């Protein structure tokens, strides 16, 4: 079965519908599926729920879908850096479900691994625990969190082979593997598609079983906080 598609729009063809739940990889603007997000904006799909650690900035990442009001709800751990997000949230146009970052990552991983729920200490005694099942194990209290299974996963990797084996680069890996795992269908955008056999099988970060469609493209890879030191300090 052919997994490689020519454009982001082609890679998403037939997969988008209003009201769907999409899991997206990325941390801040690092390792986000920027081309697939642009294609979703162009497709005009509405009432989307995104499980994504962040919501981009005003003109990049998920922020571009907030500008076009295509997003109904965000499941995120941190949503600063985005004025339009805050405006829509405060006016009640946008729903927001805060998840602790590790709980969100594990909800995705668990969902992809056939685990419908797991117990965690994270959030016990806080508003995150309200309404959730509490259970003691070995004298400690834990809360039940649910696995996430998304209608679609959109992720960004560095390299793929044509079978969908993926390699990520540095901290751009972040939420991409768990997001990829939790989708019923996973579409990946990469910087480079390499021939079968070009990736070391021992160095593959995510096996192609999780990947259904692949598209190669040029990435802007915007930096959110450019911090440097002077050469003489080095």
């Amino acid at each position, binding site marked *: 079965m052919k997994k490689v598609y020519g454009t982001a729009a082609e890679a998403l063809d037939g997969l988008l519908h209003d009201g769907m739940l999409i899991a997206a990889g990325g*941390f*801040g*603007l*690092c*390792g986000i599926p920027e081309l697939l997000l642009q294609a979703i904006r162009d497709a005009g799909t509405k009432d989307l729920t995104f499980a994504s*650690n962040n919501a981009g900035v005003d003109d990049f990442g998920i922020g571009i879908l907030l500008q076009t009001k295509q997003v109904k709800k965000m499941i*995120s*751990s*941190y*949503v*600063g*850096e985005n004025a339009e997000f*805050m405006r829509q949230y405060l006016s009640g146009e946008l729903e927001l479900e*805060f998840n*602790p*970052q*590790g*709980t969100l*990552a*594990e909800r*995705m*991983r668990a969902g992809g691994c056939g685990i419908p729920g797991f117990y*965690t*200490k*994270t*959030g*016990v*005694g*806080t*508003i*995150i625990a309200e309404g959730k099942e509490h259970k003691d194990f070995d004298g400690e209290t834990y809360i039940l969190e649910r696995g996430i299974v998304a209608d679609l996963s959109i992720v960004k990797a*560095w390299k793929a082979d044509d079978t969908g084996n993926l390699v*990520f*680069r*540095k*901290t*751009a*890996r*972040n*939420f*991409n*593997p*768990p997001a990829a795992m939790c989708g019923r269908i996973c579409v990946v955008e990469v910087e480079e598609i390499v021939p079968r056999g070009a990736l070391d099988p021992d160095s593959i*970060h995510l096996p192609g079983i999780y990947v259904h469609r692949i598209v190669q493209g040029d990435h802007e*890879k*915007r*930096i*959110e*906080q*450019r*911090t*440097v*030191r*002077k*050469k003489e300090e*080095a």
Partner: protein
Amino acid sequence: MPWDRNQMAERAAKELDDGMYVNLGIGIPTLVANYVGDKDITLQSENGMLGMGPFPIEGEEDPDLINAGKQTITELARTSYFDSAASFGMIRGGKIAAAILGAMEVSEKGDLANWMIPGKLVKGMGGAMDLVAGVGRVIVVMDHTSKHGESKVLKECTLPLTGKGVVDLIITNLCVLDVTHNGLHIVELADGVTREEVIAATEAKLV
């Protein structure tokens, strides 16, 4: 003289032992890295990295290499990368020896509030709830009082909690407080700061 930001960071660095894996929060905690000296400390960045290096030299920034504060950083010879689920697996699993974090309020029972002020803009807890619930030791570094002079060391936190009974040590500009089962215990005073001054600036009970 109360400690300044750098002196608080320097004091916090004394809590770190050779061989520790440590997570540093944003703000004063970030400065702790400047004071670890010869100790072999590995810094974790919860977006998926162990062995976090300094900021890059101008022109060598890599958009694929950032810390949890979204700042560009560098890697070291010891660096490893992993995904967010693995990253919080090591946090939740107690593999990270210590986290040094800022705070808005801490209670005498070790409750921590550092993510939300009701009625004000809420940006989210990020990884703070996972860190305080999971790591071996939670060290808070913060000013002892607010800009308005109100104690940030309280009998009970007034703000929504990040974690309940999670703080082990509090380092403020005035002193170092150990969180014990009996309450807060002054273990050190900043140079020239008296016990009476600390008591006057603290709403919580000191034992």
